């Protein structure tokens, strides 16, 4: 489950999931929801492999979202579906989506960057919760 939350001039992304792997996938979907008006308009037509090293879960989440944003910015690909495996040393993921098509994907915001501010990955109520603030 994911949602966007208020942060004055910016936006917050929040996700909850039973496992860390699903949590990272949900945060990928939350990022998409901040970028496009209708996330369901993005089809899983291309797939890309993403590998990120890092032991700190919060920095790993930051790097994960940053990588998805960078791929949109430089390759114009929007990602909608994710299989993520988080290990003690990093993550390995397959992200599926499609190139941005102006006729079908109305962009909602230009996400400038992911921030460290109040970045969170915590265990809660037998599951996991993540939060990140993105700069608009």
């Amino acid at each position, binding site marked *: 489950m994911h949602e966007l939350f208020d942060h004055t*001039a910016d936006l917050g992304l929040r996700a909850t999931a039973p496992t860390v792997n699903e949590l990272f996938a949900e945060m990928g979907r939350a990022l998409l929801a901040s*970028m496009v008006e209708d996330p369901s308009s993005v089809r899983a037509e291309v797939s890309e492999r993403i590998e990120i090293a890092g032991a700190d879960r919060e920095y790993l989440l930051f790097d994960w979202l*940053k990588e998805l944003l960078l791929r949109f910015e430089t390759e114009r690909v929007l990602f909608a579906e994710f299989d993520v495996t988080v290990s003690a040393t990093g993550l390995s993921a397959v992200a599926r989506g499609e190139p941005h098509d102006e006729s079908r994907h*109305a962009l*909602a*915001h*230009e996400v*400038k960057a992911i921030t*460290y*501010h109040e970045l969170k990955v915590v265990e809660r109520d037998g599951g996991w919760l993540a939060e990140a603030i993105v700069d608009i």
Partner: protein
Amino acid sequence: MKSAFSGPLEHIGCNCHRIPKSYKAGMRVDGHIYASPTLLEQVRKDQAADQVANVATLPGIQVASIAMPDIHWGYGFCIGGVAATDPAEGGVICPGGIGYDINCGVRLVKTNLFLDDVKHRMKELVKALFHTVPSGAGRSGRYKFDTKETRRLMGEGPRFVVERDLGTLADLEHTEAGGFIDGGDPEQVSDHAVKRGAEQCGTLGSGNHFMEVQVVDSVYDADVARAFGLELNQVCVMIHSGSRGLGYQVCDDALAAFRNCTTKYGIELPDRQLVCAPAESPEGKKYIEQMRAAANYGFCNRQLLMQQAREVFADVFGRSWEDLGMEQLYDVAHNIAKLEEHTVEGVKKQVWVHRKGATRAFPAGHPEVPEAFRAVGQPVIIPGDMGRASWVLVGAPGAMEKTFGTTCHGAGRAMSRMAAKADAVGRKIEKELEQKGVIAMASSRFGLAEEQPKAYKNVDDVVETVHDADLSRRVARMRPLGVIKG
């Protein structure tokens, strides 16, 4: 999450409120927040004041962690924050104190047209601007530079585009720092950043960025207005944008590169987003070289935006832009750090002045004020919201004494984006603006809702506060006639 600030804010005169060092462990100096009694109520509503206190913990910070009356809650630094650090005292450079949008700023272009010349043509003019000037998320522009050219552009600043007939040398003279910040090194900017910026020079972007056609609504200081070439009912163009994806990526790269610096240099921070490095450290020096190069890109971006506006006006009015008197009044950054000389406790020092949503406001006589304005002071351009007003101010001596030569940068948000969007449900913002005499076009449906006038504080209140505190003085109030947004 958005709790009110319950800490001390002690009035110490001239609209300045103090957060004493004792408020939080680790504060090296007091916090100073400039706000009128009305604006202070809004300051208390969220944790922006706590962020002012956090900034006061930065190593080498001088005098106070300062915030302008358009302060609002940011990430790390508050928006409207000013911090000067002394490199000789281990002072740090803090990417979060500059922001992702390095050299976000404002440019004001004059015309010799008056309200009566344009009022019946506003729809046509706004439509032409909207279709010519690329705006909106991730949009690329008509000027495409390959990676080699993008690096050259960062190395040379807007001179690079002016040499290609996209402006004049007078434009450069009327830009902060003459349109070129020395000491940048484009080779230090990552390939990712260059790739993000290569096709975006000359594009507005999204969020609060805009291009507006405005009219001088009131003149407050006739002598300074004359020196600036502004008069009642004159039409101007205001441009608000920054360094696009290139700047965002430079900041991003620095945040990653600085991750281990806090441990390496023994810096304790209350918020990870304040991650920093001593300005004289290898990491600090590298970021400064990147940041300066990105700032030069920002000046180029606004130069190309202005040039497109000039071409549209020429098309619509059937006269050349020179004939329309489209001279640049000034261009000033409000997200930047500059090494400047300031007098601290009677001693002249070179300090790193971080301005995060705050504008340089040098007074008359300062050597960095262009010769044309040196007798009156630096023009300060303050964008407001799209329904009410924007302002032209002039730098004042009080800024040198109290705020490291700095004043406010805008209206400051009063409502969050989501609240503003919810508030706009069922309303037609374009129609409401049209009834007020403003023609607005935006590329995103959310754009107008999130940026509606109500989402901002009243810029007139913000400007009154800085005027009364002598940080800058009122020259002219500008009313919007036409707006294009991302």
